[in-house]
């Protein structure tokens, strides 16, 4: 059998890759980066780099970048809550997860954005757990019924309770790391077990251009030491916070991510790092940051190629839309993004459910996007040679009335060759009418309820629930919140 060809998208020539790399290294060495974190500055000082403590500017020598790159694992594994199912991040493996972090939810009834509360976060985590093409969950919505001070740990708390899937998350405050880490350790049983079988990925975003805030640098350091993979989320905005050209933004992207990678390796040699991002092509008319723009997706696909060139696991925010409701724009921007991301071989693709410049999460969209992700997976599975010969045997007795429907060959392969989406409309017109002329959003709304009812959430054991709650409550109390919203644990 001929080996199945993996369809692949590459936007950059080797020559351009080399040029981008050279310029990124040059910026790191000559202009340097700003790092507003004492501990990170000390680490650079110890590594013999030129550090200006006053301006907090660090010049990073190419040799240190090289050493850090060779210390970084080219792939990693993360595990679900039970520690049983493992997911490989590396090569061209693709895993989709919901985008984050939305500050509103699209209300199922009114189809308008509103603030989310605990019950929304629960439904979101539970639903993500039910959707087969989302391999991971994310802490993708902020809950407004808890203090903003604990919104980072609270979303992780809910996610760990209501979904077994590995989780993409991150801190909003330096102290957030401690309770979030403790929760993860409780699930795994020990710090050592957690480091061996990571359950969560922590996102950390540099502030373009070329700056790591105190919070994000600390997240890199803390995660590295705990064995938690850090996802480096460089997020230039073309012509606003990064160069106007796509190639120019890629130079900055590489420089920012590499500086983050060096921080991780200085904190703990061998720390797992994912080369990610959320750059956008800034809209010069509206002054907005369209995630559904084709140019945004081009930057994403290209930096993924650069990440692979550096032999690193990759991540991208793709498969999202700037539409405000689940309309045609919502679908096509998401579809194009998800397909391009899969073709680019991005290891972690965060985006499902997202609308409105990553402001809004929609459960209906999450269900629709699950099917888009299913299509993308099918695409990258490629076209296989199933038999040898491919078709000659089928035509052996070729006649005018040859019928493929009844051939054993058809029964053998049609389920392997095709996917069978649940929501996508493939009915003849009259049947569609007889089913009530429902749009995909209406069907998705029904499917959300259907999935949640049919699949009760699989919660951690009672003891773990109790300990998680204690950690969350202690964090809340330290931040002026005497009690937590009531959660129905069935």
């Amino acid at each position, binding site marked *: 059998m001929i080996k199945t060809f993996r369809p692949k998208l590459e936007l950059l020539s080797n020559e351009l890759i080399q040029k981008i790399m050279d310029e990124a290294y040059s910026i790191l060495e000559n202009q340097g980066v700003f790092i507003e974190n004492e501990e990170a500055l000390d680490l650079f000082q110890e590594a013999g780099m030129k550090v200006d403590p006053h301006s907090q500017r660090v010049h990073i020598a190419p040799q240190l970048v090289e050493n850090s790159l060779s210390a970084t694992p080219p792939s990693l594994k993360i595990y679900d809550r039970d520690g049983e199912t493992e997911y490989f991040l590396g090569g061209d493996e693709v895993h989709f997860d919901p985008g984050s972090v939305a500050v509103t939810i699209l209300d199922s009834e009114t189809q308008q954005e509103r603030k989310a509360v605990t019950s929304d976060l629960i439904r979101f985590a539970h639903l993500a757990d039910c959707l087969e093409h989302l391999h991971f969950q994310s802490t993708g919505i902020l809950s407004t019924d808890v203090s903003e001070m604990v919104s980072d740990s609270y979303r992780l708390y809910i996610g760990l309770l209501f979904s077994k899937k590995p989780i993409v998350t991150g801190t*909003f405050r330096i102290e957030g790391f401690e309770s979030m880490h403790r929760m993860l350790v409780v699930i795994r049983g020990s710090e050592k077990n957690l480091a061996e079988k990571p359950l969560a990925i922590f996102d950390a975003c540099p502030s373009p251009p070329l*700056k790591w805030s105190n919070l994000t640098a600390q997240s890199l350091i803390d995660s590295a030491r705990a064995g938690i993979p850090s996802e480096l989320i460089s997020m230039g905005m073309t012509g606003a916070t990064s160069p106007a050209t796509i190639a120019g933004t890629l130079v900055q992207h590489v420089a920012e991510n590499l500086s983050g990678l060096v921080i991780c390796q200085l904190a703990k040699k061998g720390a797992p790092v994912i080369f990610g991002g959320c750059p956008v092509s800034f809209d010069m*008319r*509206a*002054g907005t940051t369209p995630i559904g723009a084709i140019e945004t997706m081009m930057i994403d696909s290209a930096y993924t190629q650069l990440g692979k060139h550096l032999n690193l696991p990759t991540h991208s925010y793709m498969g999202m839309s700037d539409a405000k409701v689940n309309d045609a724009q919502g679908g096509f921007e998401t579809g194009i993004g998800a397909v391009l991301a899969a073709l680019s071989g991005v290891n972690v693709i965060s985006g499902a459910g997202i609308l409105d410049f990553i402001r809004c999460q929609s459960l209906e969209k999450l269900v629709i996007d699950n099917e888009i992700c299913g299509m993308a997976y099918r695409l990258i599975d490629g076209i296989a040679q199933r038999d040898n010969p491919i078709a000659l045997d089928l035509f052996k007795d070729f006649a005018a009335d040859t019928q493929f429907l009844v051939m054993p060959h058809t029964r053998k392969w049609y389920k392997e060759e095709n996917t069978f989406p649940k929501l996508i409309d493939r009915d003849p017109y009259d049947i569609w009418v007889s089913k009530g002329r429902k749009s995909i959003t209406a069907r998705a709304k029904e499917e959300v309820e259907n999935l949640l009812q049919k699949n009760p959430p699989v919660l951690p054991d009672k003891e773990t629930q109790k300990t998680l709650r204690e950690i969350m409550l202690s964090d809340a109390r330290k931040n002026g919140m005497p009690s937590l919203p009531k959660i129905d644990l069935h």
Partner: protein
Amino acid sequence: MNNEKFLNTVKKAILEGNKDDAVQLAQRAITEKMDLNKVIENGYIPGIQKVGQFWEEGEYFLPELITSAECMKAAMKIMQPELEKAQIDIRSEGTIVIGTIEGDIHDIGKNLVASILSANGFDVVDLGADVKLETFIEKAKEVNANLICLSALLTTTMTGQKKLIELLKKEGLYGRFKVMVGGAPVNQKWADDIGADGYSENALTAVGAAKKLVEK
């Protein structure tokens, strides 16, 4: 160069966003002892107004808009000492203290707003990014500001907007300085909830919103 022609050159420099020309023409107006008030009223201001018009019509995008605003600022900076010497009082739309809240080092949105407000005749004191709440209030008192503009890009620093208003209330300054909020996660409802006087979705609407608040 006759007067009309000179004013047209000024207008053109602003419209095309040519900073060197905008500054040199201001310098020349000073050296040649022209009536600076007239140069501004009939040269620079019509220039920036035309920029605004081009923006409205969809001819200009943000880079043109901001570049022209920056030219205007640079030229005004050259002329300011002369205007003060001659005791010419260029009518200010009001004084604004602006900055991005502590913990937030994103300042692209705030920079746009500051630049556009300044080009539209406001005296803008830009405190930069990662600014302590107390600093906003101290500065507002010092320059007797009409308005404090608070930007936040992060959902976490957004709460600083609420805290600033609480701080103003505590110090009995709520109402003395109007507060306008903005930033990606911010909306009108949030502004209403925290008791902010105004909200602006983007840099352009900020001008109208600021004028309204200052008039009140």
